[in-house]
């Protein structure tokens, strides 16, 4: 069964599919729904900061540098109409519960200053959960 989720990008930026999490990454003027999972140990890339050159994300868990290009390749297929996005969920997620929420995304902030310690999460990195939107099954 293929599933899609319809979300309002003006209100929500994160999709939970079972234990997997995807977040909206702003990159080169586009918004992509990418996996919130560092390939090193699964750290939350949504809380990563950009390196000074803006081309990599520094994972908050171990400071692993992950190329933005690599992160883009984890994006889910998405069709947009204004702020409304229809996202095609991975086919192997079975009946995993889906929810759409809004969180603080640090990965979209301007690059950190070079002197800042890698991996330290600013105190402002607070999570704000909100109610999800409708999930449709096709």
């Amino acid at each position: 069964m293929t599933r899609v989720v319809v979300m309002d990008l003006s209100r929500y930026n994160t999709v939970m599919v079972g234990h997997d999490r995807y977040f909206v990454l702003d990159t080169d003027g586009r918004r992509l729904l990418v996996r919130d999972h560092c390939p090193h140990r699964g750290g939350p890339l949504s809380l990563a900061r950009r390196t000074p050159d803006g081309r990599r994300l520094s994972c908050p868990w171990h400071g692993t540098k992950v190329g933005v290009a690599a992160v883009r390749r984890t994006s889910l297929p998405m069709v947009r109409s204004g702020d409304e996005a229809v996202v095609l969920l991975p086919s192997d997620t079975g009946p995993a519960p889906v929810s759409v929420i809004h969180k603080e995304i640090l990965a979209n902030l301007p690059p950190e200053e070079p002197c800042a310690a890698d991996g330290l999460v600013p105190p402002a990195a607070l999570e704000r959960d909100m109610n999800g939107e409708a999930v449709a099954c096709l």
Partner: protein
Amino acid sequence: MTVTTGTFTTGTVSGGRPGVDVGRLAGGTVASGDRAGDLAALCAQRIFQPGPEVYITGNPYRRPIGAPGVGERDFSVPATEAEFLGSGQLIAGRVLCNAYESDMILLPPAGLGTAKADFDLFYGDEVRRLRDSVRPGLERYSYAFLDDAVPVPAVRTFDELQEYFLAEVGGAGAPADASGSNPAVDLTAPVGGTMRFITECRHPEEAAALHLIQLALDALTEASAMARNLGGSYGLEQSELFKIFVDEFGYGVYGAKHSTIFKEMLASVGLHTDVHAYWNFYLTSSLVGVNYFNWLTEDHRGVFRYMAAVSYLEWLFAQGFADTGAMLRAVYGDRVDAAYCDEHAHIDIHHGRMTYENLLLGLARAHGDLVVPELVRGIEDTKLLLRLGDADFRAQVSWADTLDEHTAAGAALASAANDDGVTATLRPDDPFSTGVHDSDRLVEVTDGEVDVHAWATDRPHRLGKGDVLLVPRSRLHGLKAASAQARVTVRTIERNPHDD
């Protein structure tokens, strides 16, 4: 670089306490009166009395302190560095280990079943009351020697701390790499130090097992001491420690938890995986070393020492566990599952950097020069405990590896023994516990046969009638009758300390 006996992972005193306060130790002794009575009462609890088994499985609450009467001992005068491996430290170490772990949740993996009554006793009101009564005095007894034994380097500022730390880890064989922070790990480095010592002894499997058993003291409850420092509110450093803790606990995945992969390593070489199955084979130095970290996290005045000690160890662990993995593969071949070592050889590269930059230097940055002496003290304490632990482990292996030679030596020395023999009759089902003597002893079997357990092995050294074994002071051992009845006589003997 080696991990020595390697029992520290995760886990004080102007007179006994972290954080400097001499006056607060007043009354904190186990000397006489009620507190001494409390220690005897604690040691007399059923779960702290020895049973007939050599290995204790299926029940994490049974932790024999020693032979009957050990609780009567006077612990009012702190042990000196020279007494570090003495019988007092072993007894205090066992009691303190029990005390610290009674605020951790321990459940038998096969179910509480027949251990329910022991569970109730271990966590019950009376044991906790006795524990709280005797603990401060025993901590002073065990750790006050660090005040005298540990040097106080002239390190007082942030910059001096940074320079000092990098010099120390460089001197320990784990210099920073080109980035100036990450500990460099050479996976192809030849195994040296204690790891090589294990591979080259006569019984490398027993020696490697003894090393794993020392690690198990901490690794089967890995990061439980660290968990005590997760609560509260102390800024960025708290979040940094939490990230390390998340790694230790496998991101909430049981199969990835470090204690789980440690169990798999034990099982792969045929060792029991129950918490404290090898309680009788923890060396004195291992107990003191692991207790040190429980102490610093139980008494929160030790937070700065703890963070510095963890920073130093995490930095060294990456190469240390690479060496440990190489040793285990050399000893056991393909049958050992050394994923635990591989995991640490990788993740501790990160932890070394994270702790150094964001715990050690982070705390110095946040709280200023005021805390630098305590941070340095944590590193100096750890260096000393590692050195003493390494010496203890090597001495134990050297002795256990040559019990036949020490039996021949015992026979040669028999006529020179002092006339102070104590004779005992042993039967196979008698209570078994291990211990150490504070002087050299000759153990003579006058009737029957006796097995000597000097490390965990299915082939203990057997003494027959007329055999005499030389047991150097501080060497851990237990005796068990191998015949329906056996009689042994133990005498002291004067020897040159360099004869070991």
